[in-house]
């Protein structure tokens, strides 16, 4: 229920008096403001009420404008946007449902980490976007295309679903494609759209299966039956599409036998650990899978992995914490343990790391809003991050989220740092130390 502020505010009392008598004590005007209702109630609260009445939008109303989020919001750092400003704009009557600000949040969660009032943009923004989309407001064209592609082909690039496992042909090791072999496996490797189709993602996918093969892991992939997980789709506000994907994926998983799921990406991890269980419970599906991010899975068998890392990699490496593995799931160690296990490799940390890691800009639908967002920021978030990596003298920027390799490689080029920094998925570095290769 939207609050009817007009009933709560006694209009005649909203003014400054030179002298007021409070409980018999005479107060001079310069002191008495605290005893009067503040002028703030004169604002039009319709938009704020509309947002806080959405399921998930409630906490925007808690903001008391302290500004702690200003210094940590990755978008605010390169632009003019943040939770504090969102609240303020709503207060001033901006129709945020039709405003560019609706699409800028990457749901990186850094504001929630510092907010004393637990204003939760990770829930507010998806709720607002869902409302905007379902009430027919325009969706930025790039995002609309990604939604349409995902709905139709199961991947944001609009590639053929039948070619989802084509990368396997050049992997150099046998890969069990479950719909073909139909045998039970220990690990279901959920590959994800970017490792399946993006050329640099495929490099990581091939590295992954070679490493798993060498470790003797009994694994299989879903091949053409795998579909986009839908977590970023959900954060971008397309709940109906998320539900459709979740239903399809849950049904597909149920057709095969495996002990656990290992995912390539932190967004898939968030989907399968947080969103799918809730969706399954609400809609009468079974969901009781053990889910691991690949860095967690490999870190759990480090005793077997370490002896296989024979080739020293004499690189200075910095690690970019993915928001959806770090802040969202508190996993900071597994990727670092893997990197430290590589002989010769020297680790340096960026100024913003771990809990305060800077967002690459790809989360919350940002992956499909690059040109849109760049119209409202001084530089791309990925470019900011690349500059931070160079600042600490890194030669290699190590990542473990499939969104990031292409984002950062583009940013290395666009900031004119070609040749100074290379971007590698951790699994590529592991494969290089195991089999040799040519990172640099």
């Amino acid at each position, binding site marked *: 229920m939207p609050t009817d502020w007009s009933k709560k505010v006694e209009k005649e009392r909203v003014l400054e008096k030179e002298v007021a008598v409070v409980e018999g004590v005479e107060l001079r005007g310069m002191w008495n403001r605290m005893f009067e209702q503040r002028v703030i109630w004169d604002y039009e609260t319709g938009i704020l009420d509309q947002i806080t009445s959405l399921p998930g939008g409630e906490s925007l109303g808690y903001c008391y404008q302290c500004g702690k989020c200003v210094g940590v919001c990755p978008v605010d750092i390169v632009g003019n946007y943040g939770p504090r400003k969102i609240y303020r704009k709503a207060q001033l009557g901006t129709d945020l449902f039709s405003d560019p600000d609706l699409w800028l949040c990457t749901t990186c969660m850094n504001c929630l980490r510092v907010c004393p009032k637990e204003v939760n943009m990770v829930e507010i923004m998806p709720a607002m976007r869902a409302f905007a989309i*379902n009430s027919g407001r*325009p969706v930025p064209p790039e995002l609309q295309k990604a939604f*349409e592609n995902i709905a*139709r*082909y199961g991947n944001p690039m609009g590639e*053929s679903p039948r070619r989802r496992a084509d990368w396997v042909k050049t992997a150099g090791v046998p890969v069990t494609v479950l719909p073909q072999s139909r045998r039970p496996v220990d690990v279901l490797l959920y590959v994800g759209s970017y490792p399946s189709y993006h050329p640099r993602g495929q490099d990581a996918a091939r590295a992954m299966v070679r490493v798993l093969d060498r470790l003797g892991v009994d694994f299989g992939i879903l091949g053409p039956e795998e579909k986009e997980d839908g977590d970023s789709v959900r954060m971008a506000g397309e709940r109906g599409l998320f*539900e459709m994907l979740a239903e399809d994926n849950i049904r597909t998983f149920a057709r095969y036998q495996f002990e656990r799921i290992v995912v390539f990406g932190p967004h898939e991890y968030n989907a399968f650990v947080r969103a799918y269980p809730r969706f399954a419970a609400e809609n009468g599906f079974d969901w009781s899978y053990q889910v691991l991010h690949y860095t967690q899975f490999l870190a759990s068998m480090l005793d077997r992995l370490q002896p296989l890392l024979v080739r020293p990699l004499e690189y200075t490496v910095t690690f970019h914490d993915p928001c959806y593995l770090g802040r969202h799931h508190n996993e900071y160690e597994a990727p670092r343990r893997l990197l430290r296990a590589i002989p010769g490799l020297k680790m340096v940390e960026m100024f913003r790391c771990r809990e305060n890691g800077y967002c690459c800009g790809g989360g919350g639908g940002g992956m499909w809003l690059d040109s849109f967002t760049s119209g409202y920021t001084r530089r791309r978030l990925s470019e900011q991050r690349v500059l931070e990596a160079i600042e600490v003298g890194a030669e290699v920027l190590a990542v473990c989220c499939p969104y990031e390799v292409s984002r950062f490689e583009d940013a290395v080029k666009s900031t004119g740092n070609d040749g100074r920094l290379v971007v590698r998925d951790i699994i590529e570095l592991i494969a290089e130390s195991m089999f040799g290769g040519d990172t640099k």
Partner: protein
Amino acid sequence: MNLVVVVREVPDIQEELEVAADGKDIDRTFISFVMNEFDEQALEEALVLKEEGQADSVLVAALDGEGVDDILYTALAKGADEAVKVIHGLEPPIPTRVRAALLAAALKSIPHDLIFTGVQSAEDWDGQLAPLLGAALDYPWVEVVTAVRLEDGLAVVEKEFKGGLRAELEVRLPAVLGIQAATKPPRYAPVSRIRQLMRTATLKTVEVNEMSPAPAAKIRRLSRPVASRSAEFIEGSLDEVVEGLLSVFRNAGVLRGEG
């Protein structure tokens, strides 16, 4: 003011198309279908007119075919008021003349003031549906329309000619318009709305039985285009690529001197 938008399905070219065994059609076994992109433009233009209060209702109509139900539900999710499927009993591919005759027969039982359709469709690039439908109904028609405004009893339309030339025409209603582009990009249809409509909405059907046989071109043979000359790739450093391009332009006679 009732608008009718005639839409159709076309093969999704995401998957490779094959020529069927009889050599007269594409192999329709494994392909899926999407809405013709020009029909999406036509639908968008009609929806905008309704939103602006220039029209009262938008009805979408399509000849029955594979994937047509999904297309009609999507149109409803975008804001069309009604969807009608024309049942006809013919096998694809259906030539444009026959399409026009079937649709003209169906439109007798569908109230309409103005009919929109895409200027052409990817299946045959024939581009004749609007004229043929206009002829069959004895209505005026305009092709390659890029903007529509409604004034009492008239549609004021912008038509595009070659070389960027535009004309503004006044058309008596009822009329048929072949839309080239809507005034804004086609809107998004939220999946939850499509799915909800699939459960709750009904697609109306109109059956067309009698139809005077329309003369139509027959497909005798379908074949893949043969690559005659391969493209030239200019490789090397940026400077080399630029130099290569310049020499291509010079040899083609479009650039003189050292340029």
